[in-house]
């Protein structure tokens, strides 16, 4: 049996050097290298990304928001990430949100953070009770990204004016007649900064001679005022969304603007 296994792996060895992704490119600075090595734990990857999120920028009113595709830049195996994220979501540890600007991108927030920040924003207002009720009934039992009218009225027993209050407080946003997205209150500024910053960083890479730059060089550069979320955050975003390709070189990862 042992011999067979050896041989099978041997059969695969012929291919590996050509792939060329594993052998080098791990000499990143700081934490990111540690995460690229241990590929398995999505939750710790999430926590690492949370630590990159600039809380101060929003006066600590927003929960740390992560984009799902940012995880792909930390873990090579996308399938595994998807499965673990969906598991965490079913357990209720994280919440997922549809980002309005792109149907493919989803935001991830830890449930605890989300509840704390949303309630803090509501404190002292008359909508507080409704939001509290929404969290207690809906978020506990259901991990959906959006809700329709029928479900809200019949299953969770909300009244029309309560839904209006929820929309007003930003916990729900209108998606269609009679259906709502779950949303993060006050996240408009985040979306704006994200899109601006993404454009700015991508522009920086495009300005270079061959549309490519070493990741370490890019991280060390002085950022313009457009890049508010932090360069690390944006690099993870660009890699995950496949707007740039990662090419391992002997001096670290090279980022090249993806064609097509």
């Amino acid at each position, binding site marked *: 049996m042992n011999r*067979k296994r050896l*041989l*099978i792996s041997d*059969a*695969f060895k012929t291919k590996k050097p050509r792939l060329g992704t594993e052998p080098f490119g791990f000499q990143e600075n700081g934490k990111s290298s540690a995460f690229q090595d241990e590929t398995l734990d999505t939750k710790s990857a999430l926590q690492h990304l949370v630590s990159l999120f600039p809380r101060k920028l929003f006066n600590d009113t927003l929960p740390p928001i992560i984009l799902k595709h940012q995880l792909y830049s930390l873990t090579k*195996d*996308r399938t595994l990430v998807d499965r673990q994220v969906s598991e965490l979501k079913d357990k209720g540890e994280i919440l997922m949100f549809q980002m309005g600007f792109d149907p493919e991108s989803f935001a991830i927030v830890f449930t605890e953070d989300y509840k704390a920040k949303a309630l803090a924003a509501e404190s002292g207002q008359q909508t507080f009770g409704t939001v509290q009720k929404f969290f207690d009934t809906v978020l506990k039992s259901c991990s*959906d990204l959006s809700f329709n009218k029928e479900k809200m009225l019949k299953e969770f027993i909300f009244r029309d004016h309560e839904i209006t209050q929820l929309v007003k407080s930003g916990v729900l946003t209108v998606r*269609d007649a009679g259906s709502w997205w779950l949303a993060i209150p006050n996240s408009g500024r985040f979306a704006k900064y994200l899109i601006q910053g993404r454009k700015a960083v991508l522009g920086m890479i495009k300005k270079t001679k061959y549309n490519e730059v070493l990741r370490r060089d890019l991280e060390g550069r002085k950022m313009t005022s457009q890049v508010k979320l932090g360069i690390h955050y944006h690099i993870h975003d660009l890699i995950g969304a496949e707007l740039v390709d990662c090419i391992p070189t002997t001096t670290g990862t090279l980022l090249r603007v993806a064609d097509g």
Partner: protein
Amino acid sequence: MLGFLFARQTGLEDPLHLKRAESTRRVLTLELNKDRVVDRIHGNGVNTLDIEAVEGKYMLSGGADGVIVIYDLENSSQKPQYTCKSICTVGRSHQHVHKFSVETVQWYPHDTGMFTSSSFDKTLKIWDTETLIPAEIFNFEGTVYCHHMSPIATKHSLIAVGTKDPKVQLCDLKSGSRSHILQGHRGEILSVKWSPRYEHILATASTDSKVRLWDVRRATGSLFTLDQHNGMKSKAASEAADSAHNGRVNGLCFTGDGLHLLTIGTDNRMRLWNSANGENTLVNYGKVYNESRKGLKFTVSKGCSPEFVFVPSGSEIAVYALFTGKLITMLRGHYSYVDCCEFHPDFQELYSGGKDCNILAWIPAPRSPVLDDADDQTKNGGSLNPAFEDAWSSSDDEG
């Protein structure tokens, strides 16, 4: 490898293991080979390829100018150099040639005496291979995007046809007439495929971003539609509930065992589904560039231990591991968009056709020689002045 052969000889090993390991190795080393050329007959893009399952000897190709060519793939000359010759051609001057682009060609699964072709000229033709005269012509109201015959069917001989019309039509070869209509889609049908496991199960993909599975014995409608969010309806947009992709779905492919179904859409995603219950297996292949407005023909390897998917992606062919979604390699060689690829399960070869009018053969790289031989060769090469060397490679091959 020697160990494997020994184990096989002494009966320690299941013959299947050896076969699988070797075919996996071969698929991983696919590359263009100067010794294998496919004759260039098409004067326009190659839309579709099909290799017959009976002997694996003949390949059909359909071109954007309506031309259909049959190639002989078998190399009986016992030399490594081989040009796949065309045996016969339905050329522009042929009296029964398709007027417009041929979108799909397929051999009759049980015999090479017959093949089918469908075209943008709104016809589906059943050809007699001997005489190259259509035995039957089905006419449709809209352009025909695709058709497929069940590879395993013994109880029926239906051809599923996808046209501009949202109804899927089934043509019966026994009676030479259209027997059913499958109603449910709301857009053009870009791809149809029969299950290789159950002869009555049919999958269809459409521009309305849905994929439906049908049991053709059932009169009331489709069995189910595939949903990218696995049944959490509130996640999908209310008007486009149960969509398989966020764009047109233009490619379908069952795995060899028929247990899984791959779909590809213009949202640059490829998804793998459990074909028994329609569940999304959540395999993430990353971005698979796909801008085709027509159907895209991609294929899955057969008989390897992790299976592979070959997907045309721009002017390259991407090779993914089927169940992990990892990108294994990109096969570069075409000068323009690749439209179709076809896997030869017996020899682990891949044939691909593209808009550059070429059909390329991707052949497993030969095993590198044993180390001692290689050393000898380099020594010889070093002692001889390279200027005096002439065609040494071919003499080596013969000797």
